[in-house]
């Protein structure tokens, strides 16, 4: 059975979804979904171990070898991202039962879990597969589930946000499809490994360039990279809180993974550099993204929206890491992938608790929250500090590596810019803390969020601190993954 792990990783949530539909009772569906997601965490843990032990795992579906059939290919990078996605997915679903109770009418709840599992399976499928067309299919599974999930927000603007996301997401997916078409017409294969072997000979071809451009733009639309980010704040702000937490912690990570995968594994590091200054473009877009999004975030009255913009800014950091173009830079990106998932997961889950109490995440409700919901607020403070990059939290580690990478290249302006960006984060986090601790709340004092919501949040918050101090696991994984990507794959 162990040899089947790569496929089980995706199949378990994928098949659990229709089975979940058959249950038709919210509680049963929830338990079932929990079970499926925990199994997938275990599988991803085993996968990391196996990859660490034996190197790249390749699994040919249907028994057809690589270029003919579809191949699942798990290397360190994908195992790492699989672990992040499945881990966050499982924690979120623990909290989901309580969180959606007030946000989604009861007869829709079983369907909610079905969609949640499908979304999870789609994301896992994108990461695990080694076939670019399969990426497209699973991308669409997760996207369709996401659109429907976002539309479940109680505000009617959730519908509008979901529609916008749908249009943008479909355009992005179609762009990716066009890119795949060009690649196929050029090479005659869809397998990533095979493509990587065949593309270097075609480096000067305009078709390869176009394919690259379309893939990049398509992924960046999904990624919400700065100028293409307009769908994200709305979608995050109006979606049900648990969905926001899940998406913020996983969906963009998977998009970053795809970017790295296409950029490094399929086309090879040298490709982009030879035809266009992609790295400089990434650097500039990343930096502008950090600043613009942080500045907008400072002015947001809705805290969910505030953190959504902050997500755009954090994506900017990840892109900067890629843009630096060194092993350390990429390592910083990968670390931030992990760390950002932890902190945004914690923050948005804490917001879910606040929404559970007050019905919205408006900053008004934060007044006096330090006394009224001490635990939730403490978690927000931890997440916020991590977002800023205070030593002792995970945020510090990724910023540290980012600065290290810039330092290696002697890019002082970049270091200063990153520090300035953190300063902006200080401003918007401080705003929250000030309101929560130093302003008297009006109205009666209300209690803490229910434990079922608080515990997963606390786990994430503790993970923020734990991995900020004991950095061995993520650093090791990201370091070897980054080395592997620059080494052109093992």
């Amino acid at each position, binding site marked *: 059975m162990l040899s089947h792990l790569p496929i089980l990783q995706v199949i378990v949530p994928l098949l659990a979804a229709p089975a979940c539909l058959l249950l038709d009772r919210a509680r049963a569906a929830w338990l079932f979904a929990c079970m499926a997601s925990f199994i997938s965490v275990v599988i991803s843990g085993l996968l990391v171990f196996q990859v660490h032990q034996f190197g790249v795992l390749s699994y040919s579906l249907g028994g057809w070898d690589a270029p003919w059939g579809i191949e699942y290919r798990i290397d360190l990078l994908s195992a790492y991202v699989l672990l992040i996605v499945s881990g966050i997915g499982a924690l979120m679903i623990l909290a989901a039962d309580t969180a959606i109770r007030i946000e989604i009418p009861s007869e829709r709840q079983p369907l909610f879990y079905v969609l949640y599992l499908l979304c999870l399976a789609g994301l896992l499928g994108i990461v695990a597969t080694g076939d670019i067309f399969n990426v497209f299919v699973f991308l*669409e599974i997760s996207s369709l589930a996401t659109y429907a999930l976002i539309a479940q927000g109680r505000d009617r603007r959730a519908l509008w946000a979901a529609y916008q996301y749908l*249009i943008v997401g479909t355009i992005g997916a179609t762009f990716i499809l*066009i890119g795949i078409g060009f690649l196929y017409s050029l090479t005659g294969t869809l397998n990533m490994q095979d493509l990587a072997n065949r593309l270097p000979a075609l480096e000067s071809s305009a078709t390869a360039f176009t394919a690259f451009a379309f893939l990049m733009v398509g992924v960046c639309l999904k990624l919400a990279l700065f100028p293409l980010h307009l769908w994200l704040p709305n979608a995050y702000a109006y979606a049900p809180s648990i969905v926001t937490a899940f998406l913020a912690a996983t969906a963009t990570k998977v998009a970053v993974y795809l970017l790295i995968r296409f950029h490094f594994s399929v086309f090879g590091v040298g490709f982009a550099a030879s035809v266009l200054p992609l790295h400089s473009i990434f650097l500039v877009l990343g930096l502008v993204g950090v600043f613009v999004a942080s500045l907008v975030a400072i002015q947001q009255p809705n805290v969910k929206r505030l953190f959504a913009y902050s997500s755009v800014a954090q994506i900017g950091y990840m892109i900067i890491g890629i843009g630096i173009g060194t092993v350390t830079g990429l390592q910083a990106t990968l670390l931030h992938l992990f760390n950002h998932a932890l902190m945004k997961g914690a923050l948005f889950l804490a917001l879910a608790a606040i929404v559970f109490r007050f019905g919205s995440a408006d900053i008004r409700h934060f007044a006096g929250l330090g006394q009224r919901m001490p635990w939730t607020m403490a978690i927000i403070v931890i997440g916020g500090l991590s977002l800023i990059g205070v030593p002792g939290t995970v945020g510090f580690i990724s910023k540290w590596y980012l600065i290290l990478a810039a330092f290696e290249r002697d890019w002082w302006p970049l270091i200063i810019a990153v520090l300035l960006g953190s300063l902006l984060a200080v401003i918007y986090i401080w705003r929250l803390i000030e309101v929560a601790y130093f302003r008297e709340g009006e109205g009666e004092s209300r209690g803490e969020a229910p434990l079922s919501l608080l515990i997963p949040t606390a786990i994430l918050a503790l993970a923020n601190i734990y991995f900020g101090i004991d950095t061995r696991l993520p650093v090791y994984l990201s370091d070897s993954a980054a080395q592997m990507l620059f080494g052109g794959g093992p």
Partner: protein
Amino acid sequence: MLPELYNYWVVIVLMMIGFYIVIVQGNLIKKLIGLNIFQTSVFIFYISVGKVEGGSAPILAEGVSVYSNPLPHVLILTAIVVGIATMALALALVVRIKNAYGTVEEEELQERDLRC
């Protein structure tokens, strides 16, 4: 060069028409039609890639030696299904938007959002 590639270019023109509609149209449903055109033209693009001069449909038959490439057909079958699934979901969203806002025009939607 031109006669060898004209097929692709026609497809590209079609594709861009669809893309333009998606961006410019204010009506949500028409936007979706544009999206559909955009997607379908991508399908045609794929099928053009799969065409082989003098080839025949990829179903085994006696007396036929050259077949068109079946792989793009398979991919596009999948893509069509994905496309129609997306459409169904999008239309469901539009229906709900109409119910919640009373309009399917982008500008009016934004106005009504600002008012509340």
